[in-house]
């Protein structure tokens, strides 16, 4: 469903952000994307949601060959993806409910169907009671749940999460991670970039590790490593 084949990505000012990266993520998988800051985790995600094009190599996402995709195809691709960020990226002047509804409205969903779909995902992330709250009235963990609800409301096949717990305390981190696991359990693939290795060790999921733009380790392909060897 997501397939990188010999992908290179050059920085605009020279140097490589990604060097010959290849992997394949299947439907319904949960994958950790790990590595130090600047290792290329965010770049991989940006290539997946077509924020940036690969310099060379092939990126295929949900049936789209992104090298061939035109600008007008990108919205259709993004509607099949859910994207969550470290900084939540909610619209401050809209309530939780409106933030989620917004993602449906922009895709031209049927007006009448919107409130029910919004409440369903807000319930799923455990925030039904705070539907009317503005982002500033919510804790970090709650804001991230709203962001996740917004990512889910279009029923994506993949949820991309870029350091989703990076701004959260430990308790909120556990809650959000559990939510992502639940989402995965119901069939949605999750690609989660993180440098929180405690989180990675907690769950038996596939790990793809990047180092300076190169793929160092993929637990689906390589030998399992012992704890001591992992970064």
């Amino acid at each position, binding site marked *: 469903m997501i397939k990188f084949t010999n992908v290179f990505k050059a920085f605009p000012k020279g140097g490589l952000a990604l060097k010959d990266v290849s992997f394949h993520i299947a439907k319904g998988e949960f994958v950790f994307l790990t590595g130090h800051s600047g290792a290329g985790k965010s770049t991989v995600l940006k290539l997946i*949601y077509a924020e940036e094009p690969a310099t060379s190599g092939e990126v295929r996402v949900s049936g789209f060959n992104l090298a061939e995709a035109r*600008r*007008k195809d*990108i*919205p*259709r*691709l*993004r*509607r099949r993806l859910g*994207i969550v960020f470290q900084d939540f*990226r*909610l*619209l401050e*002047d809209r309530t939780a409910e409106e933030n989620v509804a*917004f*993602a449906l*409205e*922009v*895709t*031209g969903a049927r*007006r009448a169907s919107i409130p029910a779909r919004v409440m369903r995902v807000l319930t799923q992330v455990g925030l039904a009671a705070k539907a009317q709250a503005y982002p500033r009235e919510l804790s970090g963990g709650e804001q991230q749940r709203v962001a996740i609800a*917004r990512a889910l409301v*279009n029923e994506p096949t993949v949820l991309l999460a870029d350091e989703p717990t990076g701004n959260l305390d430990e308790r909120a981190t556990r809650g959000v991670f559990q939510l992502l696991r639940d989402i995965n359990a119901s069939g949605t693939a999750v690609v989660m970039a993180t440098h929180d290795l405690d989180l990675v060790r907690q769950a038996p999921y596939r790990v793809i590790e990047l180092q300076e733009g190169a793929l160092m380790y993929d637990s689906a392909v390589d030998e399992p490593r012992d704890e001591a060897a992992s970064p």
Partner: protein
Amino acid sequence: MNLVIREALLAFRRAPLLSALSVTTIAFSLFVVGLFGLVAVNLQQALRDVAERVEIVAYLLPGAPIETITLAQKDIEAFPEVQAASYVSEDQALQRARTELVEFRDVLQELERNPLPASIEVKLKPRFRDVDHVNDVAERLRGFGFVDDVRFGRDWVEKLDRLRQIAAAVGLVVGAAFAAVAIIIIGTTIRMAVLQRSREIAIMRLVGATDGFVRRPFLLQGALKGMLGGLAAVALSYGAYALINRWLIHAAFFSRDQAVAIVGFGMLIGFFGSAASVGRHLRKV
């Protein structure tokens, strides 16, 4: 479409200060254009009033038979340039002289013989009141056998022509300059509104909004702001006009069409300014 309208209106509610600021900026930019327009309109009106007095007088030879003159008068009235041609007999000319030239009343009273010739006074239609057409008509009048002389104040008509040309040139240049300044200021204001919402635009695109979807509320909003600014500018111009009218000189205001044109100009700048700003922004993200 509902959604587009709602989003466009929401922007006014969400950023009332910035929206008010843009409308005000647009209003004042257009107000300057409007003031200049008022000057132009009044100048034109004044020139038209002056041009009213452009008249060609054909003095007739004494003794021309009245039937011939009446026929000729009909002919002259049929000239495409001519608005009206009226016959003034010798007696009428004297009568007029007596009432108009009061200082000479005594002289005129004591005349034994009327020295004034009969004449045909020709008034041209407004758009033919320039030196070329006047000359042309005068020339044709000279062609009539019973016409002795034709007068029309050549110098005066030529000066009027120059004045008109100057007014038109200055109007065009200054008007274009003011309009350009208005376009730049309004464009910048609208660009600010777009930049202020760049985060929102980025989020819209992330959740799968098409470029058209992102663009449409901005276009509508830009057109609305331009329209409101234009209406305010017309109101301000009216205020200025009322003051001038009351305290300075009797002036004319815009016709309905001209007022509508100002509002339309505002709408167009708002619309295309938004299109350019959002387009540029979208190409970058």
